């Protein structure tokens, strides 16, 4: 992907060449960023459109919607006092008219293909619309209110769980790679396979031990019912409910994550240039900072970014097992109903957040890893 054809600097004019190289580097970065924005934008549009297609079952959901409207209208006409004197034929006509009015109001008479693009446009402009069945805690039908209700709990649970695990693994991993072969190191290596089980699985065990047998902590939920009026008590209650799910996330990930970081650092610390640095007699700290941490930074940044992205979707199963009122559980409920606007809105926001993360990641990548050359002739190296 040769973005630019920089003329080779002539040997006779080093200053000009340097200036040229500088401006062309800026142009390259801008061009690169521009193409990335376009590419990621296209990806967002396609992903959202695919979700709309699936969530509407290619238009099948609308048939269900029309059937529901017809049923509602029929019930109303046959039961309402003012229509009692109408004949059967008149009633049927009336029903047909009222159904058509509602269908036109919802624009369900358009072909699904056309409507799907309207849904797409509404979605992309964050015009999230109204839910079909779900409501927010205060009874609002607006999808954004429903999502906002659930966002807090999910972020609370996932952020405490994932970030705790990520940073603990990073620092412990680095420490273990220094004290390679120690007892703690061997214990972590031995326990690494424990992460093959997902968080909800450990959650069940934790519930069994701490809720069912010992009775110390609640079975699930985010706050006790009824919620305490006092803010401090509310906070304590949430904290109490948070312990088990966060522990489940932590236990299920910490050993494998630590093992991965440790192995990763060990691989990089056995590189030749590290040996060279050691031979030169550089202090350990300097070797670590310059020769081990620096090349391992890009994958770590990727890892962190991907961890942050998963925060948004939450964990459907973990939230179900712990009855945690988060986005994962919302998605689950919405899919079962199905409540299409909620599903689509959730996807759209997820896609937007991801797009922003990926874009930032791309730019950060180019900065932290000089070996990944922006806009260079990829494929054949340089």
């Amino acid at each position, binding site marked *: *992907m040769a973005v630019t054809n920089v003329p080779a600097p002539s040997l006779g004019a080093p200053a000009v060449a340097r200036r040229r190289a500088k401006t062309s580097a800026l142009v390259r970065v801008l061009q690169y960023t521009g193409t990335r924005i376009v*590419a*990621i934008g296209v*990806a*967002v549009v396609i*992903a*959202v459109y*695919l*979700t709309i297609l*699936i*969530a509407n*079952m290619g238009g099948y959901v609308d048939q269900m919607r029309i059937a529901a409207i017809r049923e509602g209208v029929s019930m109303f006409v046959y039961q309402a006092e003012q229509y009692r004197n109408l004949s059967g034929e008149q009633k049927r006509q009336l029903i047909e008219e009222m159904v058509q009015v509602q269908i036109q109001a919802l624009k369900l008479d358009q072909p699904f293909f056309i409507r799907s693009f309207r849904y797409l446009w509404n979605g992309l402009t964050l015009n999230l619309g109204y839910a079909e069945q779900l409501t927010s805690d205060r009874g609002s039908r607006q999808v954004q209110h429903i999502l906002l209700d659930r966002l807090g709990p999910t972020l609370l649970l996932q952020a405490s769980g994932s970030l705790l695990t990520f940073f603990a693994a990073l620092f412990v991993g680095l420490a273990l790679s220094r004290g390679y072969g120690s007892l703690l190191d061997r214990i972590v290596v*031995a326990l*690494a*396979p*424990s*992460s*093959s*089980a*997902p968080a*909800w*699985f450990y959650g*069940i*065990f934790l519930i*069994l031990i701490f*809720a*069912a*047998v010992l009775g110390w902590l609640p*079975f699930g939920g985010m706050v006790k019912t009824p919620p305490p009026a006092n803010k401090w008590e509310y906070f304590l209650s949430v904290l109490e409910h948070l312990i088990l799910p966060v522990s489940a996330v932590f236990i299920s990930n910490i050993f*494998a994550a630590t093992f*991965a970081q440790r*192995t*990763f650092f*060990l691989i990089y610390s056995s590189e030749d240039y590290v040996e060279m640095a050691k031979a030169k007699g550089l202090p350990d700290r300097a070797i670590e900072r310059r020769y081990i941490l620096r*090349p391992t930074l*890009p*994958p770590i940044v*990727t*890892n962190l970014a*991907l961890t942050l992205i998963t925060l948004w*979707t939450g964990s459907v*199963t973990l939230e*179900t097992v712990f009855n945690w009122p988060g986005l994962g559980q919302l*998605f*689950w409920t919405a*899919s*079962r109903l*199905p409540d299409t606007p909620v*599903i689509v809105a*959730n996807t759209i926001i*997820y896609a937007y957040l*991801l*797009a922003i993360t990926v874009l930032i990641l791309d730019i950060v990548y180019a900065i932290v*890893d000089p*070996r*990944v050359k922006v806009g260079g002739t*990829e*494929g*054949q*190296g340089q």
Partner: protein
Amino acid sequence: MSRFAATIKQLSQYPSAVLGMFFILMLVGLAIYAMATMPLSQAIDLWRGTGDTWQYTPRNAAPAWLNLFPGINKPVTMDFDTRKLPESRTVEEVAPGMWEVRVSFPFDFTYDDFPTEVNVFTTVSNTTARPFLSMKWITPDGREIPLVDANLRSSESFRLDQDSRLTRRLGGQPARIGLFADPNSDKLVPLKGRYELVAEAVLFDADAELDVRLVVYGQLHGLAGTDHRRRDLTIALLWGTPIALAMGLMGAIGATVTTMAIAAIGTWFGGWVDNLIQRITEINMMLPAFPLLIMVGTLVDRSLLLLTAIWVALGIFSGSIKSYRAMFLQVKESPYIEAAKAYGASNMRIILQYMMPRILPVLVPTFVNLVPSFVFFEATISVLGLGDPLLPTWGKVLSEAEAQGALHNGYYYWVLAPSLLLVFAGMGFALLGFALDRVFNPRLRSL
């Protein structure tokens, strides 16, 4: 073959690998046993439990081996059937055209607790007139308690606990307690000793047959206990094994090979290939995979095979391709790749022999973690209620336990048995994989 033997030999030096292989072999043995003793169709039929398949087992009973623990002595299901115990039935012609059948089931009851239910089932065949049946209960201390007098239709079930007249006769206690309670004790404790059920009936046809079955439902049953629908959990736990192993292996192989190959090809060739792969990945990453799977599961079909295939497909162009790519990008810039290019190595040679081996140390743990993750994938979708509609699997046992509030109600065995099997499967592969990792990646061996 010799290479395989050498690998095994090397592996046997790692205790964790030996433990892992032990778990896996145990599960493979269990899977073979399941497949050999019961065809899948029969397991599915039994697990669906149509009709009266599960009449004779107790509801929510814990495993019978709990009695081996000191201090636990709970009743186990006792099942007496004239078809299996022909000597318990005597027939006598009391008058011309009248035969008196006497069925007697003596049994010793030595448990510290009461049964959960007492039922009597009768079937009569080849008869023109309805026979008259009268049953009584003889306790160890010699009391005779009349149970039921009835005209029998072709098949009857007497649920003694629900017989309100009997309950009144027993002083307000349901039969499962009243029939066994010690009358001389202040506390409600069962009287130990020899009980006897006597059923007498008069038949009016020479070839008429009366069969009686007494079931004293225990608090414990079988190897794995039973669930809320009285189904013996052994079936699902046994047959869940081959299903879990197959799913785990197929899923893991499918996912790893495709993802890594595509990442390597994309990174090496660069240009439009890399671009296309990256664009697909980006679109795919923005699709919320698990919710999509849930949508397919709820709206289309819940078959385990379909859902696993979709999960693998959604996983090919996933986040891991991006981290593989990050690694490959660095590998590609390494001097030894430069050298390979300089001496004219082909693209395929560089990808297969120089690039992929380089990230193997990171890949093998991924593959290893994938087998259990596909085993757990089944459990995960089952816990969400998307389990395969037909197959008896570990995940479905677990999900039903969850749905029935097994932990709230103290039915721990119901959660623990499938969980332990999942742990064995997960740990088995993970432990083995960690050792394999060292065998196949000599570089790691010193780490």
